[in-house]
């Protein structure tokens, strides 16, 4: 695993292996990729974002996170593949070269490390963080109901035993707070993209409200073009729309928070499933999933690059 070329991208890996692989990626591309520790998790594991940058200070940036829901393994596995793709395509693919010539990309591959480890060691179906809930025997908060965006509203549970428990207060989860602090202290993020699995959706805000965001038409158009690019590879069919309108009302979500603090290009992917496996997508589908997602993601990033604001 110390050799980036021998790493099997078509397999699911433990947290230690992924973290170790990040070092090999950084070592292979020292002038492009660095590993930024954005904080530690509830159980004191380091949280990292890979920073893709060709220089400059606080350039306009794109945030991408995967694996905030622990059991969504294909999200994390796809992010590993896409990190490698972005690094190896720099200087080869004119689009990636141009993007990274103008913007930085921060990619958090395992945004819920405690939960991810727990899915490997104890409960493959675990979704939440692993924080202790005072007064309850149940642990964990849904980190995608914990953001300061309609916090505690419809579509989030106040029951600590629920898989969609919103937590005691907004940003109570250190994993969420670490991302919030990075994004706010940086101050120049132009896009915020969360990668989830599964059900083949590309969504934009809002989830906490069913009213349309001011940039609805533009976000819808960008989303549809991105999905067209994604589908061009294998014909995978995606739906595009606001979280509330294409799934259900859900408050406290990450992309609602990012949009409300002024990051216009806020999107969430729900990656591929064949309709047979749900969260247990077989490892042989990781690379096809990542490959098609990369096309959609790249389209959004190109659009962000070409439409500064």
């Amino acid at each position, binding site marked *: 695993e110390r050799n980036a070329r021998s790493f099997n991208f078509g397999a699911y890996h433990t947290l230690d292996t992924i973290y170790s692989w990040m070092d090999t990626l950084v070592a292979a591309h020292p002038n492009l990729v660095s590993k930024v520790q954005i904080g530690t998790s509830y159980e004191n594991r380091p949280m990292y974002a890979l920073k893709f940058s060709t220089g400059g200070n606080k350039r306009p940036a794109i945030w991408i996170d995967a694996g905030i829901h622990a059991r969504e393994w294909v999200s994390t596995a796809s992010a590993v593949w896409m990190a490698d793709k972005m690094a190896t395509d720099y200087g080869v693919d004119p689009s990636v070269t141009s993007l990274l010539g103008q913007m930085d990309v921060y990619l958090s591959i395992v945004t819920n490390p405690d939960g991810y480890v727990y899915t490997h060691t*104890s409960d*493959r*179906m675990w979704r939440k963080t692993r924080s202790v809930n005072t007064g309850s025997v149940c642990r964990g908060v849904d980190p995608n109901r914990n953001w300061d965006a309609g916090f505690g509203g419809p579509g989030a549970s106040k029951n600590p035993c629920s898989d969609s428990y919103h937590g005691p207060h907004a940003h109570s989860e250190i994993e969420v707070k670490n991302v919030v602090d990075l994004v706010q202290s940086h101050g120049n993020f132009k896009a915020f993209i969360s990668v989830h699995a599964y059900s083949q959706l590309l969504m934009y805000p809002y989830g906490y409200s069913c009213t349309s965001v001011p940039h609805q038409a533009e976000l819808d158009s960008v989303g549809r073009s991105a999905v067209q690019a994604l589908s061009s590879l294998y014909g995978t069919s995606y739906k595009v729309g606001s979280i509330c309108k294409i799934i259900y009302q859900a408050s406290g979500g990450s992309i609602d928070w990012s949009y409300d603090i002024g990051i216009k290009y806020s999107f969430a992917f729900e990656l591929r499933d064949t309709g*047979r496996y749900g969260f247990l997508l077989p490892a042989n589908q990781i690379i096809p999933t990542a490959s098609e997602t990369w096309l959609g993601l790249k389209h959004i990033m190109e659009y962000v690059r070409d439409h500064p604001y």
Partner: protein
Amino acid sequence: HKLFIGDQVLRINAESEEHIQLLKELEDDEGWELDFWTHPASTDLPVDIHVPFASLHAVKNFLQAHKIPFHVMINNLQELLDEEQEGVELNAMQ
């Protein structure tokens, strides 16, 4: 490791708003320990529910009684998990 022997994942294709409402009632019922992988929202999107073995009979009866169409998406969750775990271990060894 938590085991999921005999647990199934059912894929439900709701055909009406009434079906959606019934599935939402099911979601609120904590007694059957159901894990909604996707949630009842509209007839456009399927609803996937991880049903523990102990609740399978009751849930299937509920769906059949209300004529809500479903099929078994994953027949035995643990079998799939075992295959996945085997792959992770094999790869780690390599």
